[in-house]
Each structure stands twice: as C-alpha cells, then as structure tokens.
C-alpha cells in the first residue's frame, strides 16, 4: 500500500489521503513510472517466489490455478478461461494464438503437445512432469499480468 502511495493509518494530514483531483490527469496519476513497475514486480514475485512472513508464504500457484479451470488440457480453452477471470476485455485471436504458440507450446505447431504434457502431469505427477507444465504456466501468467490490458482488469 505504501508503494502504491497510500500509507495505511498514516494519512498526510487530517483531511486524509488526497484525492486524485489534479487536472488534467485525475485518476491517471495512480499509474505512473514509479507505481507501474512496482505493480509488475508484485505480480512477478507472486508467481516466482511469493511473499513470506512468519513462516507463511503467499504465492500464486500456477498449476493449482490451472486445475481449477474447466479444461486446462486444451491450450486454447486454458488461455480463454484465464483471460475471462483476469481480464475485463478479451484479447484478439491473433494475440491469443501468439501467446499459445510461443509460451504454452514453446514454438511447436500442434496443440496436442500441451495436451499430452498436461495429461502426463495429471496422471503421473512426478517432478519432471510437474516442471514441464509449471515453467510454461509461470511464463504464461507472468506474461499476462505484465500486459497493459491486465492493469485495467
């Protein structure tokens, strides 16, 4: 909260936190060259290592999250369903295609390579199978959360 400009219980004066009333930017002051990288760092950290306090850790677990989606074995459905949750406006088919090919499929042409990798993990969750899907899901969510569109969600 401090990083985002609002230090809880410590308002700058008796009238509380200042509203973003300054012309002409108004609410856009909230996003600036300082706060935006911090927002991106926050999502990156949540995905990669998480935050730890007093022996507890908060982390975005990509694989567990994917398992909650209706059809994570299909890379198209996986991206669509994740976007529905995290994004207010959908991405174009072209963007989704590129994200799928470059991240989930690591440049491969056929969707079934992801489907097979996911099925292998579900039926036999060894470390190797977990890592195969986990690295790709981490890249996926890191990419999505870094998109400008995500900040509008």
């Amino acid at each position, binding site marked *: 909260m401090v990083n985002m400009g609002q230090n809880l219980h410590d308002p700058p004066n008796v009238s509380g936190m200042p509203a973003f009333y300054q012309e002409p930017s108004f609410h*856009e002051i909230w*996003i*600036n*060259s300082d706060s*935006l*990288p911090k927002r*991106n760092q926050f999502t990156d950290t949540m995905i990669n*290592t*998480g*935050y*730890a*306090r007093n*022996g507890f*850790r908060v*982390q975005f677990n990509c694989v567990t999250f994917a398992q909650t989606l209706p059809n994570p074995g299909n890379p198209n459905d996986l991206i669509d369903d994740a976007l529905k949750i995290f994004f*207010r*406006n959908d*991405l*174009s088919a*072209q*963007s989704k295609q*590129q994200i799928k*090919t*470059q*991240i989930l499929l*690591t*440049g*491969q*042409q*056929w969707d079934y*390579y992801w489907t097979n*990798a996911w099925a292998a993990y579900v039926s036999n969750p060894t*470390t*190797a199978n977990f*890592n*195969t899907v986990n*690295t*790709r899901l981490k*890249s996926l969510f*890191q*990419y999505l959360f*870094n*998109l*400008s*569109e995500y*900040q*509008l969600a």
Partner: protein
Amino acid sequence: MKRRDFLLNTLPAAALLPEVINGYSVKAFNANSPLVQALMRGTTLTDHVLVIVQLSGGNDGLNMVIPVADYSRYFNARSNVAIPEARVLPIAGVSGTGIHPSMTGLQSLFNEGKAKVIQAVGYPTPNFSHFRATDIWMSASNSTQEVYSGWAGRYLNYEYPNFPNGYPNTDMPDPLAIQIGSTTSLTTQGPSVNMGMSITNPTTFYNLISGTTDPAPDTPAGKELKFIRQVNQQTQKYSSVIRAAANAVTQQATYPTNNSLADQLKIVARLVKGGLRTRVYMVSFGGFDTHSVQVNAADTTTGAHATLLQRVSDAIKAFQDDLKFLGVEERVIGMTYSEFGRRIKSNSSVGTDHGAAAPMFLFGSSVESGMLGVNPTIPANASVNDNIPMQYDFRSIYSTILEKWFCLDKTIVESLFPPNINTQLQTLPLLKAGVCSGVTPPPPPDPTDVIVTNYPNPFTTSTTIKFKTEGGHTLIQIIDTLGRVLKVLVDRDYPTAGIYTVNFEAEGLPFGIYYARFQNGVTQQVRAMLKVR
C-alpha cells in the same frame, strides 16, 4: 596499466565492507556495490556477439546435411523422402557430404569460407519430447537432470554478477541478452533472475517488429489502455538505448520477404551495428515437426521441409551479407540448433518421426569453415527405432563458443556447466585461431584463488557454504539484496590454509536472493544464493 589493476590499486578492498561505510545509507551501498564488484572482477572486454537460431519442432538433419558417400543406405532407409543424389548441393572443401538443394544461400557461405557444419550433435540418453528436449538444450543439463537456469544465463551471470541490481550502469548500459520474437527463454535464465529481455515484451517495443499488439478500442477503457501502454514504454529501463541503437542504422542490405527468420535477423543486425553491447541474441523459427508430408511426393526436393530450409538458408545468407555491408562481420557468429533430429527411417506418411542427434550450422567470418565430424552411420536395413548416434555433445559446442569466442578461461567455462558434465567438455576446432587475441580476458583465477560456493542452490531452509581460505582472518557475511548484513557466519583467524564449510540457516528469512560475501586478506568474493519454497 590495466583497468583491473587500476581499480585494484585505487579501491581498497575494504571499501566494500558494510562496517566501513557506516554513515552511508544502506541505499547507497546497494546502488554502488554491484557496479564496483563488476569492475573489480573485470568483465571480459570483448565486443563479440552470438546469435542463437532455434529451429523449433525437431529438424530433419538427415535431409538437411546429406551423406552422399553413403547414399544407397540413406536412400534405402527413407526412399519416400530422400533427396535425389544428383540434386544434393556440394559444399566447399568437403567431399562425400552435401546439403539440401534449397540451401543455395548457405552453400555460397561455405564457398566464402563463412560456414561450418558439425555432424551428429546430441547428448547421451536423448529425450524425444519437444518440451523436455528443448529444456535440455537450453539448460545444458543431462537428460536425467533438472536444471533451472540456462547456459547463456549462467555465462551472463558470471560476467555481470548481481544483475539486475545496479543495472543498467556505465559499465553495461545495454540489455545483456535479447530475445527477438517471444518471451525470454530458459536459455538466458541465470541462477536467480533472467538475464535476457524480449523485445516483443508486451510492455516494450511495438514498433520494432510486427509483434501482436491489439489496437486499443475506442472506448473509455481503450483510452486508459493507451495511457498505460505509454507509461509502460517510458519505464522500460532499456527502451531508450534500444531505440537509439535501432534508429542509428538507416540503411541495411536486402533481406528476403515473407521470411520471419529474416525479419528477426534483420533486427539483430541493426541492433549490433547500432552499438548495443548485448552479447547474446536469440531468434527462433518453427514448423520443423514434419511427421507427415515433409516433401512433395512428386519432387522430394520441394515441400514443407524444403521451404523451411530455404528460408533458414536465405535468411542467414542475407544476414551475413548485411553484417558485411554494415562492417560488423568480424564481431558476430551464429549457430543453429533444433531440440532433436529425426529418425533415420521415414514413415509411411511421407514424413519422419522424432529422433536424436542432428547437424548444427555455425556461420560467420570468424568461423573455421568446413565440416566437423563424419557422415552419420546408417544401418543397412534401418528400422523405425534407429537413431543417428551422437558424435559431438552439444555442451562442447557451447563451451567452445564460451572459451574461443567469448574468450573465457576454460576453468571458468567448466564452472558454468553442471558438475557431472563439466569434466567432459571438449574444446572443438570451431573458430579461427586468434579471434580472442586483442581481447583482454580477465586474469584467469589462480588455482589457489579463494573460491566460495554453496550447495544446494537454490535451497529451502539451509545451505552449506564451502570456502577456501589462505589462512589468517576470514570473514563470511550474509547480505540481503538491500545490502544489509543479516548474519556473520565466519569471523575468525584460521591458522592454516584450507577448505572449510559452514552452514547458512535461513529459517525465518523471506524467500529471495542472498549473497554470501567472503573476505580473506585482499581477496573478496560474492556468491549469490536463492532461497525458495
């Protein structure tokens, strides 16, 4: 006087000691120390650039580099996809081996003495899954081993320790590695952070190549989207240097159109000429997963695979010509690889299935031209399970490039590979003699030099730090990324020189990067350690 000597003589080693800088704020220490450490260690002064061309999908090496001397066995094993002997292009200085008829561009590079083919590159116990095999090639691990960092990332981490803390700086104002066309890959993943950046990163360079950026809709949300994108571009640390480099080059040689690899290499040439000191570029080109209809049955020299190889060959030829035009030819070499080759025997769908070892190409005016290795052994009656046996381990290609192109001492090169591999690395004749002369390598570490390591790394709750002291007073501090000394593990006199270990118990500390700072006499060394779940 060498730069390193100057620094060693003018900066007291103790200047890095947190105790000495009491009175300075923690922040100042944090901002300065990585730079000073980088200078103290002496980054290898080279302007050499490596371009890694990834051919995704598993390229059929046997139809790319054709064993003419063994043609009858080659034809028997894959008659429905075989290239007619008369159509195989000969390569300069090599008899008994030729390349695919669509690769005329590459053939002319061989004629100019700027290309090399390395036969049957692979690794023991190959993996036939695209994902896993790609991860193995990027991390340089064994097939039985999970390694979480990439080989180029480990190299860049050695040269630029503590990245991204303190970067960009005057010593290295530019990105360490640039991937064109996708998210940053495992190849540039360092021990704890990724050393590379992607320039189709969603937040960065829409204009440089035809990345996919959705147009902002004409709604209030679209207006805010434009605004956020604008802020994003402004805050990208490297956006201005990359733009400046790209804008500095106004004229380039001609590249083929409708060729995404050529588009990517064109950007690389532009950034190299534009003055970026970036050492590693990665480009990728997909579609090599040719299980079926690899060739046109009527003419096996045409078809899907022929088109792909032609694009690769045309793109590399145009890139090489452009580098010459731009006058930076001596600074750049390139390397092609695919996650695996394909089976010797073709299948009944006029295609080939996932295989093992495959040839690699190196290109550049500093490359020792010709062929390394011999034609792959093809059995008289190849069965569906026959694979090309490996002649060269791909890790030896990487290590040779690090040693002979990036001019690192071999002992350092070995330290960048997993322990069970590094003793087997070969130095191969890939580059012309003398490319490293005139380059100032950092002084090779004295074998008696103090080394501090830790295992395991990354670790969960505790890790064992191993260090070698010359005797006398020895200090090991644990410093966090803010530069705070959290623990002092060793602070005593050792009567004799030797190797000792000490445990770092990190229970209760947040996850993230910690540095073990070792000091003994005038020597100091910092080791990055990553605490994870």
